[in-house]
């Protein structure tokens, strides 16, 4: 029986004898593998990017949202919960009494016109507290963030996002100026760093004022969110229970808040983006099948071009199985070389993406690399079965007499 080393060498000689054909096949297969590698790297990169953004929010974060997020028959508004009792600053203070809670920050959001001299702009106004900057881990470029004062006390100070600062003050110094927000005036005490961008909030285009001032400005006592930072990850479930219980007690026994964790949001995003990665990987794998069909075509042509040779091999004592193996080995060699070339091409592509977009960690996951190589080899083998069988079945007498 044919030794496998000799079989591989024989196939290798056959491949290197026809460089154009071999090169084109390698190209097709390597593009397939490379696209799987690159597309999954993009998907993974996007996933890590989002994950990183979320951990930048602070890790052990619990967010309290007013309203019970549930679907019930007597709730005509449907999915979005409504509540009769507002979430208040006192609720926030009550929550902060748990020993595992390190920080809390209430948040109120409204839109108002800000103005300085003749410049005006409609922006989001966020009523919050000193702690908010610590929880969100924002940097202050100039001055300082909101002062550490009683949450129920207002103060006529504000902190601006850097973009807003540039638009309103331009070349003028902003610190110490009086900015008009709505119908009140606030002294600018700080500018947030432009790096302080955060998911879901356009910080640069916002202005921050103490929460009590915001309540007065918009004339609403209700809070939009309460951010709760928990000491340890393990304590999160206990704190959630505590929050629910405390607020329920304070709201006449009605559980009318939703508590979400950073983890839950992160997991959702993770699931979505992983699914996306699988999806693009799967789409890219189609190109591998196309490459497989190409291999089949080329091997069919090879078999008819080398009919004489196959007849000869049979006359020299090669069994049908040996012929089958030789053709399969040749196709597998093509697929394997194509897969290796594709891997190199793909890694180069990923490196290119990382160089162009440093914030996107485009590394192809191991499963994608293994899967793409496996798919390449399996399609190579599957699609060459037909030509190999055709070759094996050739009648040696007819094969030898073919011109």
């Amino acid at each position, binding site marked *: *029986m*044919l030794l496998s080393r000799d079989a591989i060498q*024989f196939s290798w000689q056959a491949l290197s004898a026809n460089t154009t054909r071999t090169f084109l096949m390698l190209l097709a297969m390597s593009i397939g593998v490379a696209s799987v590698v690159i597309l999954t790297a993009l998907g993974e990169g996007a996933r890590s990017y989002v994950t990183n953004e979320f951990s930048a929010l602070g890790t052990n974060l619990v967010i309290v949202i007013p309203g019970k997020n549930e679907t019930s028959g007597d709730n005509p508004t449907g999915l979005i919960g409504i509540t009769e009792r507002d979430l208040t600053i006192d609720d926030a203070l009550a929550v902060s009494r748990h020993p595992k809670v390190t920080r809390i920050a209430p948040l109120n959001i409204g839109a108002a016109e800000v103005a300085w001299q003749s410049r005006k702009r409609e922006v989001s106004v966020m009523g919050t507290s000193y702690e908010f900057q610590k929880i969100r881990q924002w940097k202050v470029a100039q001055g300082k963030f909101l002062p550490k004062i009683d949450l129920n006390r207002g103060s006529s100070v504000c902190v601006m996002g850097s973009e807003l600062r540039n638009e309103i003050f331009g070349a003028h110094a902003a610190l110490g100026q009086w900015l008009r927000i709505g119908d009140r005036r606030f002294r600018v005490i700080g500018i947030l760093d432009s790096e302080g961008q955060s998911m879901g909030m356009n910080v640069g285009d916002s202005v921050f004022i103490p929460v009590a001032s915001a309540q007065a400005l918009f004339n609403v006592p209700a809070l939009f969110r309460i951010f709760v930072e928990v000491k340890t990850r393990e304590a999160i479930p206990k704190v959630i229970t505590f929050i629910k219980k405390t607020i329920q007690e304070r709201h006449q026994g009605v559980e009318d808040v939703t508590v979400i964790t950073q983890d839950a949001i992160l997991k959702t995003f993770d699931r979505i983006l992983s699914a996306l990665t699988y999806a693009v990987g799967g789409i890219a794998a189609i190109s591998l099948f196309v490459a497989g069909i190409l291999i089949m075509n080329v091997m069919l042509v090879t078999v008819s071009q080398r009919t004489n040779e196959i007849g000869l091999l*049979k006359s020299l*004592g*090669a069994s049908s*199985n*040996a012929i089958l193996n030789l053709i399969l080995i040749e196709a597998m060699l093509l697929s394997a070389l194509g897969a290796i070339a594709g891997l190199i091409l793909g890694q180069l592509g990923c490196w290119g993406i990382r160089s162009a977009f440093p914030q996107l960690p485009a590394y192809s996951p191991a499963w994608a690399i293994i899967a793409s190589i496996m798919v390449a080899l399996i399609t190579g083998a599957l699609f060459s079965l037909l030509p190999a069988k055709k070759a094996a079945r050739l009648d*040696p007498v007819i094969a030898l007499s073919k011109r």
Partner: protein
Amino acid sequence: MIKLQNIQRNFQVGDQIVHALDDVNLTINDGEYVSVMGPSGSGKSTLLNLVGLLDSPSSGSYFLNDHNVTELDENEQAITRNQNIGFVFQVFHLIPRLTAAENIELPLVLAGIPESVRKARVHSALESMNLLDRAQHKPQELSGGQRQRVAIARATITEPSILLADEPTGNLDQKSGLNVIETLEQLNQRGITLIVVTHDAALGARSTRSIRMIDGRIESDTIDRKPGQPLGNSDVTLT
């Protein structure tokens, strides 16, 4: 020993059945030098392919060294072919991408013989065919006569007992044709059974036994013992 009994080989051509071999009975002893002649379509190539196990009879039995090889499966037939039968073709059938040495080596490769053994045998085959300086040349760099000698070296590298040649000089000029036929005859003198299919009467006349075929039947089978030329190692039996 080759023994064909009531061999029938039929081909379907359209709705007609062609009898390429029609009730052929033939025994060829070891070491014989047989020429098979006859007009085109007389079945001489079919006979050669059948003896070489490239083709199977529609009916009848073929005994090779007292084994009924018609009963062997495809894989066993391939092994038998590899070990017992060498083919020499009119168009050489060398693989163009392989060197002369690699072409000669092929049957050993297919038999799974380790490389060290192969190299030594290929070397001595090249030596005996006077092709040592041509070992690393590709077929297109060789003359017709050299190509056929490479093909003969390949056919005999597994030391088969039977050498089948189908018009071995058909694509050669007279001088290299003669050289090739002498090479084949030397092998026959060393004991190999040589069966040559040819149109060439002069070539046919060199053999010690001439078979003439017409319409798939053996028309005549004559033993022509030439002076000074030894016959095979046993009696020729006509059946």
